[in-house]
């Protein structure tokens, strides 16, 4: 009897060791196939291609602090596990990546490992960048070699225990990371394949537009089903074909227009998407912007991850909201909610207004904001902030009104949602 128990225990220990070993192997293995290196193109052309990709990937969003030198890092990236800071990726030898080779750079982008082999936190979206080709990685590398070197030490992450234990990333990676370049689907057009590459690779759209689980991993990233962006509190809408919450009513051209100009027939970019347009997507070529639109239009109409609660405001609340609308909003957005072209977006049929979650509409009312300045809209009109003059209850009433008028049929907003949005707006 005793030997049987001992044997079972021993077997359990061995199984455990095997499981940990397997997890470690899965989480630290590299995809050694590097793919073809950049063709022997003109160095200047390679740098230009890298510059274009750096914008398409919005590298500066995390690697350039506001008002700070380009690519020298320092941007705080708040996460539920603590704050990370975009590191210095200028070619400074001591504090940047000046001593990195093209292979080192590929190792980071494709396998999520630093030059010394240590595992990188996936706040750096190598989970998406891994789909980029070696040729594109080499172009990015060539461009980053031309950036002004800046001596500025990278700030170490400030994460809570146990997330500050870097080796534990092996387990996370075993569960959620599969290195590998995006392979073209021969059954689809070149344009579609280019769009999918940009969306799932450099564009890393899933970082915001896919829901995340409790360990911060994107859930079914390719479905782009939308979700609340952790810490920021903004709602990233589904990019799938859902007619109400997603892009079902948009054309590929509409999507391209939003990416390039910041405004489209139905909507204007706001919040984090305004930053993306400003720093990244406005620089996409016409072909690439349309390729993204074409690919996104092919996604099936999955229901959004955060379904609309469906409860409409009471008639009395809608009446009060209507009064506030007439007083504060109608001068620009008009009594019929149709706005005035690019200057003042229509609210009727506007997906920011009718999203399953009212949080973006609430944030726009509280904080106002300018549409991003782009080549097509270089002098955008600004919406005033109303957070100083309207109470939580008033904001809830007016947002409920615009979500349930002129054919819009979304649920009511609550004062609690407004309070939470205020808190989120001031937290970061």
């Amino acid at each position, binding site marked *: 009897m005793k030997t049987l128990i001992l044997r079972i225990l021993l077997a359990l220990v061995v199984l455990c060791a095997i499981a940990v070993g397997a997890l470690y192997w899965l989480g630290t293995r590299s995809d050694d196939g590097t793919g073809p290196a950049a063709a022997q193109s003109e160095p200047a052309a390679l740098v230009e291609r890298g510059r274009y990709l750096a914008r398409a990937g919005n590298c500066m969003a995390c690697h350039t*602090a*506001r*008002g700070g030198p380009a690519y020298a890092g*320092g*941007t*705080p990236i708040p996460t539920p596990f603590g*704050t990370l*800071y975009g590191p210095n990726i200028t070619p400074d030898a001591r504090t940047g990546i000046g001593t990195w080779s093209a292979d080192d750079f590929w190792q980071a982008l494709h396998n999520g490992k630093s030059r010394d082999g240590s595992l990188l936190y996936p706040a750096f979206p190598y989970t998406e960048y891994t789909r980029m080709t070696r040729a594109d990685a080499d172009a990015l590398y060539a461009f980053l070699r031309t950036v002004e070197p800046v001596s500025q030490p990278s*700030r170490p992450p400030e994460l809570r225990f146990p997330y500050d234990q870097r080796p534990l990333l092996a387990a996370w990676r075993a569960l959620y990371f599969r290195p590998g370049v995006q392979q073209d689907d021969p059954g689809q057009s070149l344009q579609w394949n280019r769009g999918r590459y940009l969306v799932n690779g450099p564009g890393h759209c899933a970082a915001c537009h896919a829901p995340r689980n409790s360990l911060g991993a994107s859930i079914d990233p390719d479905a782009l089903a939308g979700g609340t962006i952790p810490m920021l509190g903004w709602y990233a809408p589904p990019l799938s074909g859902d007619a109400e919450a997603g892009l079902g009513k948009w054309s590929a051209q509409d999507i391209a227009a939003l990416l390039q100009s910041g405004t489209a027939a139905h909507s204007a970019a706001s919040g984090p998407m*305004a*930053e993306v*347009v*400003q720093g990244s997507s406005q620089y996409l070529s016409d072909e690439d912007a349309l390729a993204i639109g074409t690919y996104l239009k092919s996604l099936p109409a999955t229901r959004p991850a955060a379904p609309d609660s469906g409860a409409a405001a009471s008639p009395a609340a809608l009446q009060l909201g209507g009064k506030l609308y007439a*007083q*504060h909003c109608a*001068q*620009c957005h008009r009594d019929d909610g149709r706005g*005035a*072209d690019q*200057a*003042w977006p229509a609210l009727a049929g506007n997906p920011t207004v009718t999203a399953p979650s009212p949080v973006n509409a609430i944030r726009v009312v509280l*904080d*106002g*904001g*300018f*549409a*991003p*300045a782009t080549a097509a809209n*270089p*002098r*955008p*009109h*600004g*919406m*005033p*902030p*109303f*957070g*100083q*003059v309207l109470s939580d209850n008033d904001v809830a009433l007016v947002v409920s009104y615009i979500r349930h008028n002129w054919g819009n049929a979304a649920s009511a907003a609550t004062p609690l949602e407004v309070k939470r949005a205020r808190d989120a*707006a*001031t937290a970061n």
Partner: protein
Amino acid sequence: MSISDPPRGAVRRKLPAAAAACTAWLALAWLAVPAPVHAADAPSELQPGTMAARVAACTACHGDQGRAGTDGYYPRLAGKPQEYLYHQLLNFRDDRRQYRPMQHLLANLPDAYLYEIAGYFAGQHVPYPPAPAPAAPAAVLDQGRVLALQGDPARGLPACTACHGASLAGVQPAIPGLLGLPRDYLVSQIGGWKYDRRRAAAPDCMAEVANRLTPADIGAVSAWLAAQPVTEPYAPEPADSVTLPAECGSQAQR
């Protein structure tokens, strides 16, 4: 939390006992922020495509044409030098000046458009309202007047007029006028410089001045400035009308 937080240790070393008093001043100034006068209350109807419509996000708080509200913490913009306004827009956008609503609004705007917005407000000429009744005892106001008009050479403090012009209407291209501003706003800005919440291009001459001012100085000079009537024409003086007592980076900045 933010990378732009002031170096607290350094501040504490620099400002021993006075810090508490000045913090109280600042806290009072912040508490006193009233609700802004909103664009919807303004009489003029906005037309899309006009500059007045583009800057509705600004005039919601800073008043129609940037005239400020009589109840206002939000300062007047109208008629200030274009370069001064432009620098402030850049400073907010690039985290050198801290006020969350401004930093949020300007996040996605490029230099050229900010310069145009600055030019719009610099070109607005609206009458100043009468000065409010002095909000400090006569002795304090007198101390403020001496600081503003004569400075304190013993402490290396230049007079306000030495840089901001004999009429305190500012100096082209980038030095602002100091009259027609609420006391709370003035207290808060000088305090902001002292605590590294507001910065200008190096060498930051105003930071050097602010660091030499005691909380009592700040209260006195702000109370006196806020109580002065504005005599028209009140406009920034030509660039060559003053010889600056210190080097100021913002006068050369573009």
